[in-house]
């Protein structure tokens, strides 16, 4: 009798077991990609953040630190998800930031709706998310998935 061959059912079971870990690594990859993209073009990102009018322009360092800090937050969170180091802390900070940023997108969306008379589903602008001009309701949906994915990667996914 040789070693038993893994059954189809076993392979499926392994995949299901591995899925949380795959989500964790996928979230890490997405966040690193976003961070690198923003870091490559800090000027565009600074302009996009300024458009939200939520950070003061004086003293200047508060606004000017954001194009450095936010990409580093994304890259560091991605690395934390890959390595497992401080991943609950990274997930807490990243998801808090995503919630605040999504709220800012919503507020700006309402402002655009008021000024242009567009419906919620029609609003498009460069949200500073690294993808240029986007359809806002889609972006908000995507950010919701990102928050859930970040929380999962930080708190639910297995260590290895």
């Amino acid at each position, binding site marked *: 009798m040789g070693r038993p061959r893994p059954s189809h059912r076993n392979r499926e079971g392994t995949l299901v077991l591995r899925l949380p870990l795959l989500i964790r690594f996928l979230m890490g990859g997405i966040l690193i990609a976003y961070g690198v993209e923003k870091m490559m073009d800090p000027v565009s990102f600074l302009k996009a953040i300024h458009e939200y009018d939520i950070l003061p322009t004086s003293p*200047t360092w508060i606004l000017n630190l954001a194009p450095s*800090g936010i990409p580093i937050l994304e890259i560091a969170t991605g690395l934390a998800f890959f390595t497992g180091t401080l991943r609950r802390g990274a997930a807490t900070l990243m998801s808090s930031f995503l919630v605040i940023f999504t709220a800012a997108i919503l507020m700006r969306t309402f402002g655009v709706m008021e000024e242009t008379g567009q419906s919620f589903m029609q609003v498009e602008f460069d949200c500073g998310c690294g993808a240029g001009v986007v359809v806002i309701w889609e972006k908000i949906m995507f950010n919701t998935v990102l928050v859930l994915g970040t929380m999962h990667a930080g708190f639910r996914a297995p260590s290895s």
Partner: protein
Amino acid sequence: MNLPNSTFGQTVTFTAAVLVLAVLNSLVNPSAMDLGTDYFPTLTQSGEENSEGALPKHDFGVLDGQMVLEFLPDLRQSDFAVLIDARSTAHYTEGHIPGAYQIDRYKLDEYVPPVLPAMQAAGYVIIYCAGGDCEDSIFLATDLVYHFGLEKEVLYIYEGGMEEWEDLGHPIATGKAR
């Protein structure tokens, strides 16, 4: 090194690490934004707010595409007029108005000094950027007044910018700044 095990401790440690790295990046990385520079100076005496998607209100003279076209023969030939492209090097290289100098609005210390004598001598300093809701030309004009001592009266904004210039079918030059 013992890392904190509680979520609160991890969050505090991670936040501190991100902040330190962000400050280091701002200080060391030459392409990062300078922490001490005001990239969005107040533009008018009253500091009026502009609406979403609109250009900031300003007190500079405004030129249209036809007026800028009439200045072209004088550019780089006399002190009469200087044309400034306020966009990044990548955009300038891709296509700019012939005879325009480039001043990347986010790297003033590097780009302004070589062009400053020409601007100081000129009767008209015309600034443009991408057009549409691009506000870099207006911010650059403000910087030139407050940080480089140019007279406000000689500064003009071509608000239509590169977008309108291309739509009008006017000549376009490519390549790096001279």
